[in-house]
């Protein structure tokens, strides 16, 4: 089943196009990595999926519906969870924000909402920090809380924007291991720079730089050489295959990736 269908999508903030003729299909329980250079349109593509920006041309369907009508289906973990750390707010309150407007008590939060939020914190292994001020957590812990907030509404799709950009290597691994577990039930889309790590976990990759080139990498271990014993596989190979696939449709910047390592 296709959870996301993007057809011939183009977008521009002003005149200069940011995304052109994007086609993408995300299937249920995919783990899609969206990679590409800064300013290449990765975050813009996410914002279109979330319905924050509206497409100028083409269409996006989330589970067959318009992004604006599918708020409930998508859990979103924004970039920069390190800003605003002075804000006086407890971990549990942050997670409770994930609930979509529905039945709510006159004052404060409902018992079921709190139980649900605690459940989400348990899923990410942060339940003991529920009453802690968010600012006193480490970057990795805070990221887990943001994932719990996204899980709060029981989404079918989880979208993360640079989830590990400010976390140390061990913390990054932990986050990806967590996502792998979640992936058993949820479709996951991650925008990331850390190509080497993410590609171990993803089964699909999309390279976005104004246009999008897409590759199924689920069989990467059989098809591609890995580095040493740690199962890492080479960035250049990926860029290479993405480059070679897309160079029919797009121009200039691609050829450099075709260099053999």
């Amino acid at each position, binding site marked *: 089943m296709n959870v996301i269908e993007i057809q011939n999508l183009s977008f521009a903030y002003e005149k200069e196009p940011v995304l052109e003729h994007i086609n993408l299909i995300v299937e249920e329980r995919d783990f899609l990595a969206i990679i590409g250079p800064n300013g290449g349109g990765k975050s813009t593509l996410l914002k279109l999926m979330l319905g924050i920006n509206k497409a100028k041309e083409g269409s996006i369907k989330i589970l067959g519906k318009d992004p604006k009508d599918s708020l409930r289906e998508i859990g979103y973990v924004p970039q920069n969870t390190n800003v605003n750390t002075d*804000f006086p707010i407890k971990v549990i309150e942050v997670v409770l*924000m994930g609930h979509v407007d529905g039945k709510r008590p006159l004052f404060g939060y409902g018992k079921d909402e709190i139980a649900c939020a605690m459940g989400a914190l348990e899923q990410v292994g942060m339940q003991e920090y529920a009453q802690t001020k968010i600012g006193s957590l480490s970057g990795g812990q805070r990221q887990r809380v943001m994932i719990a907030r996204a899980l709060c509404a029981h989404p079918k799709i989880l979208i993360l924007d640079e989830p590990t950009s400010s976390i140390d290597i061990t913390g990054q691994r932990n986050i990806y291991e967590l996502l792998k577990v979640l992936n058993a039930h949820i479709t996951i889309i991650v925008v990331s720079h850390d190509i080497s790590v993410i590609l171990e976990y993803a089964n699909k990759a999309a390279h976005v730089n104004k246009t999008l080139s897409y590759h199924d990498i689920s069989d990467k271990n059989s098809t591609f050489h890995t580095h040493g014993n740690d199962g890492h596989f080479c960035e250049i190979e990926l860029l290479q295959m993405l480059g070679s696939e897309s160079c029919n449709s797009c121009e200039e910047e691609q050829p450099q990736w075709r260099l053999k390592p």
Partner: protein
Amino acid sequence: MIESIMEALQFDFMQHALLAGILVSFAAGIIGSLIVVNRMVFLAGGIAHTSYGGIGLAVYFGLPIFLGASLFAVGAALLIAALTLKKRHRMDTFIGLIWAVGMAIGVIFVDLTPGYNVDLMSYLFGSILAVSTSDIYFMVVLLVVILFIVTLRYRDILAVSYDSEYAGLRGVNVRFFYTLILILSALTVVIAIKVVGLILVIAMLTIPVYIAESLSKSLLSMMFISGTIATLFTLVGLWFSYTYDLTSGASIILVSALSLGLFLLIKKKVTS
């Protein structure tokens, strides 16, 4: 000391001053918390100065000062909300502009009012000893409205303040709550003008909040602690003002600022 306080409290104007001080301090603690966490301090300063335009107009047309200042301040808040929701990166320019124009309007209309020499200083630095009974009513109503809104819509206000983009994705009407916070700020600024004056209002909205921020784990406790601290500062400031015959607004602010310095020193000692 207790004797002198009892003596002072025999005067009506002192009772009014005390009551106004407590009401305004609590409102300032709650709304100041929202202003600080939303990084709207400069914005609140702009609204405070702009509201002088309303004071000038009220004087010229013979309307109640509070009414003129409130309407003008709310108008400025709506204008700023509309502009900043559209062009956030130009916000400081717009605020500076509205700030200056508002004050200029106030000065011109006071000039134009025949035979009336308004005491500009009392609006710039406050006149808590001249609080009337109707002023007190106005303050009570505003505080009740603030408590009502903040209690019933706490989670929306919290969501918009903490992460407005995310709140929008969860179906919260961000524009509405952003504008609501600004309107409540404008009204709070207007009543705080009576106590500390429009120049000093920013200190009243920020110093207690700054102290409360490091003492609280949630926005709710921050509001409550700020309100309590602000009340304490106002009462101590008033006492100084009465005893040594000093301007009340300035006394309150200096008491606040000195306390903040002391607090930061102690905090540094404790944490090191």
